[in-house]
């Protein structure tokens, strides 16, 4: 090989992209040619210098990307899921699907960190901006102004604006941490994102048995529009199943919830404890329930309590 040919081949030689026979020829030439050997050394030095300018993603970026992807996919999916859930079993499937939806599952390994990372915390910001002009200097770049409370011009040509701002923050901590639990309690009521709600409820039910958690679980069971969240709340209330207030809520769910999956879980929970005060509910339910399993469980429970299956 000539020096010119070797010089041209050196970049590909360095990356191991030459056919074996050409590679051998380059090596043979470099062994005897000082100038080409230097050329090869320069190629290696260039590669080594380039290696030192790698830019790695910031540590939290992957978790944020995963979370945002899950949200985007959830947004794409939700209308289709709603359209298909027209019958009781469809609703049950919807509920079941909700539990395993990527909008929910996708973030589980990231745990509370990823969950809270996407939390938004509103903070009242009422203040004056000193200095040169009212140019929003007091508002950080990642701040979103959610509403303007008041606008007051003064005689000097300046204006004072009171506003509410929404700011993104990332917090992390152990699930047992009270501050984390407090945020999870807020997240469990997050209006726009059922994925955040279901995951928060899921985490709360496993890591907290406080009265506040119980109250949030009850609230979600009764009022959350997403059956996946209601199912998780119900699951979380298992340990409170002997509590009269919880039993009353479960009874209401049995009579009112449109989702048969939720009612199936509710009936199992309600009749776990024999309780004669539920006889009336069970009798009412058996007359209006269209799900065979729920009716059968009602009937068995009433029979076990020697109560009449029908109402008179």
């Amino acid at each position, binding site marked *: 090989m000539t020096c010119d040919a070797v010089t*041209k081949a050196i*970049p*590909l030689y360095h*990356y191991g*992209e030459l056919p074996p026979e050409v590679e051998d020829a380059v090596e043979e030439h470099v062994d005897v040619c000082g100038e080409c050997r230097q050329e090869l050394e*320069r*190629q290696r*030095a*260039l*590669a080594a*210098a*380039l290696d*030192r*300018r*790698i*830019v*790695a*993603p*910031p*540590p*939290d*970026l*992957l978790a*944020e*990307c*995963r979370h*945002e*992807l899950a949200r*985007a*996919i959830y947004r*794409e999916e939700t209308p289709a899921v709603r359209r298909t859930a027209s019958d009781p079993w469809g609703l049950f499937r919807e509920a079941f699907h909700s539990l*395993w*939806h*990527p909008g929910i*599952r*996708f973030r589980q390994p990231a745990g509370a960190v990823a969950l809270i990372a996407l939390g938004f915390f509103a903070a009242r910001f009422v203040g004056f901006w000193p200095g040169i002009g009212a140019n929003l200097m007091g508002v950080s770049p990642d701040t979103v102004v959610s509403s303007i409370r008041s606008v007051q011009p003064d005689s000097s040509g300046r204006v004072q604006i009171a506003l509410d701002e929404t700011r993104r923050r990332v917090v992390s901590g152990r699930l047992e941490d009270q501050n984390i639990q407090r945020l999870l309690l807020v997240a469990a009521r997050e209006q726009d994102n059922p994925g955040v709600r279901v995951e928060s409820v899921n985490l709360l039910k496993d890591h907290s048995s406080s009265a506040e958690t119980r109250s949030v679980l009850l609230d979600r069971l009764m009022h959350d529009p997403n059956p996946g969240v209601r199912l998780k709340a119900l699951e979380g209330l298992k340990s409170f199943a002997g509590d009269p207030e919880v039993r009353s809520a479960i009874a209401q769910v049995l009579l009112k919830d449109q989702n048969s999956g939720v009612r199936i879980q509710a009936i199992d929970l309600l009749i776990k404890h024999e309780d004669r005060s539920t006889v009336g509910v069970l009798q009412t339910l058996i007359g209006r329930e269209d799900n065979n399993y729920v009716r059968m469980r009602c009937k068995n429970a009433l029979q076990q309590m020697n109560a009449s299956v029908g109402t008179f």
Partner: protein
Amino acid sequence: MLQDAAGAVSARSVSKVDEAAVIRAVQRGDQDAFEQLVRAYDQSVLRLAMNLLRSPEDARDVYQEAFLRVYRNIHSFRFDCSFHTWLYRIVTNICLDHLRKRKVRREESAVVETADGPVDRMDSFEQEGAQADPERRLWNRQLGTRIDVALRDLTPRERMVFELRHYQGLRLRAIGEMLGTSEEAAKNCLFRATQKMRVVLGDLV
């Protein structure tokens, strides 16, 4: 084992046989399978986008757009190439669009946006030599600047080929397949990229 782009074996990876099963499950609408598929590849996708575009925001956009396209189009994946190639075709197209827009829009800044605020790329280049003598630090800074100039002078395609070969460790044949060109064309591209950089950096390396 399924390899990520840098050739490292992902901790969550699955075998090739399993991968086909996972893809079929995704095509049937299995969300867990989609998650598994994303997690097998997403670190390498993010790494590629970040190193190439040098901006977490752009890298985030690439990640999101790439995997949404996968989600929307996985039904059209026919196993006539590896999933890795198919995915990287998507990713490289999106990245090339970003590079082309950037080329038109403005000269690339030496400042990289990070979670902790803007950081001068040269500073990270210097880190290793932070304890070194001032002369060495100055040299490092000059080299860093020149490397960035050199990379900026590459065409988007040359930059992409160089990124995939040098930083992501992919073979030129695979790169050609991803970029819809021949191995020979990818070779020429890599050669041109290297030559251009050596011209700019010649006296420093």
